[in-house]
């Protein structure tokens, strides 16, 4: 518990994390406001899915900040060495990091979902809102998992932000290859998107499980790399 608390303080002590929280809080409601005259079954929920950029940044900086404190003067400062001195068990450190991230993103997602759905005047059902929140949390963890593998934020940022656009890469692939509907973002979005352009007939719960599976695989791969490599 103390380690989770420490990780939470580390995460919320990062200026980029505050930027990410602000982005997360603002983007989805603004898109929802601009699209308020477009009526669809997914009004509000679709906009919530587009507003993920802040969550992606949070997931990335939670890890990448350990490897490079990005400031002109402290190049080579690797906080990870200090972190591992304090918490030598790597699994414990990662678990605490994931816990702190999950906590932060859950609160952010709940607040943003409330604002976005109110702005969009959407029909609020507990299951869909819960699905939307889980979607954000899993996306953040996915970003963390990729960053654990790459150690630098560039690749996960580009790949994941590219995929939050209206016409996402996975959506394009799904037009050629229907199995692409099982990509984490498309499958996971079934938790709260009812209409939408990709519909393989994946039930909300199944979609959530598929995305959980992807996240588990990526985070595990990241964790294995983190435990085996030199810090």
């Amino acid at each position, binding site marked *: 518990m103390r380690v989770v608390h420490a990780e939470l303080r580390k995460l919320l002590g990062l200026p*980029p994390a505050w*930027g*990410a929280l602000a*982005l997360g809080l603002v*983007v989805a409601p603004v*898109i929802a406001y*601009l699209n308020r005259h477009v009526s669809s079954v997914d009004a509000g929920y679709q906009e919530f899915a*587009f507003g993920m*950029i802040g969550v992606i*940044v949070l997931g*990335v*900086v939670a890890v*990448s900040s350990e490897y*490079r404190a*990005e*400031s*002109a*003067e402290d*190049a*080579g400062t690797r906080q990870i060495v200090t972190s591992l001195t304090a918490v030598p068990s790597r699994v414990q450190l990662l678990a605490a990091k994931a816990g702190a991230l999950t906590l932060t993103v859950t609160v952010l997602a709940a607040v943003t979902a409330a604002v976005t759905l109110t702005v969009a005047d959407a029909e609020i059902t507990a299951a869909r809102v819960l699905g939307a929140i889980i979607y954000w949390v899993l996306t953040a963890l996915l970003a963390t998992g990729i960053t654990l593998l790459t150690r630098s*934020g*560039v690749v996960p*940022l*580009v790949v994941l*932000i*590219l995929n*939050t*656009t*209206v*016409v996402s*890469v996975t959506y*394009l*692939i799904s*037009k*050629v290859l229907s199995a692409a509907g099982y990509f984490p973002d498309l499958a996971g979005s079934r938790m709260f998107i009812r209409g939408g352009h990709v519909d393989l007939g994946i039930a909300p719960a199944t979609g959530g499980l598929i995305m959980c599976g992807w996240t588990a695989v990526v985070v595990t791969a990241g964790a294995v790399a983190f435990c085996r490599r030199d810090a």
Partner: protein
Amino acid sequence: MTIVAAFRAEVIKLCTLPAVPGTLLTVWVASLGLSAVPAADVVEYAQAGFVVLGVLAVTSEYSGGQVRTSLVGVPRRIELLTAKALALTATSVPAAGVVAAVVRSVPAIWYLTLVALLAAGVAALVRRTLPALTVLLGCLFIAVPLIRDHAPPTGRISAPLLAGTLGVLAAAVISFHRRDA
């Protein structure tokens, strides 16, 4: 050092960053792959690679204090920035040419090069990789498509993009000239 020598030095610095050939190869392969998908806007996605290229060209100077060595070599700051911008253009034009060949559209070259220069300008103002990337990707992939949906249609190379790039580059020149390195 003349501007020609500075330009050569900048080209060598840019092309020997391991991330640069990696980024360009990824962009080319991804563009080829996406061009097989009907109705895919290949240039739209390829621009992400040019954002990375432009950002790396600048922030690589700041991750280890290399900028101070560079300024010892080329003490005139505007000359250094000009050489950097020229080197980025010289790298970006052939790289974008490959993408343009894939989509069979020459203007794509100018658009992608413009994006790389815009990215370099933003990176010179922010000096850090991740914030610069987030701002640029957020603008190009979230804000711009949204504005496009609510504004009269224009070509990809539009007046606001040109004005924005020039404005950012001017701001970058002024800030690089005045700030401590």
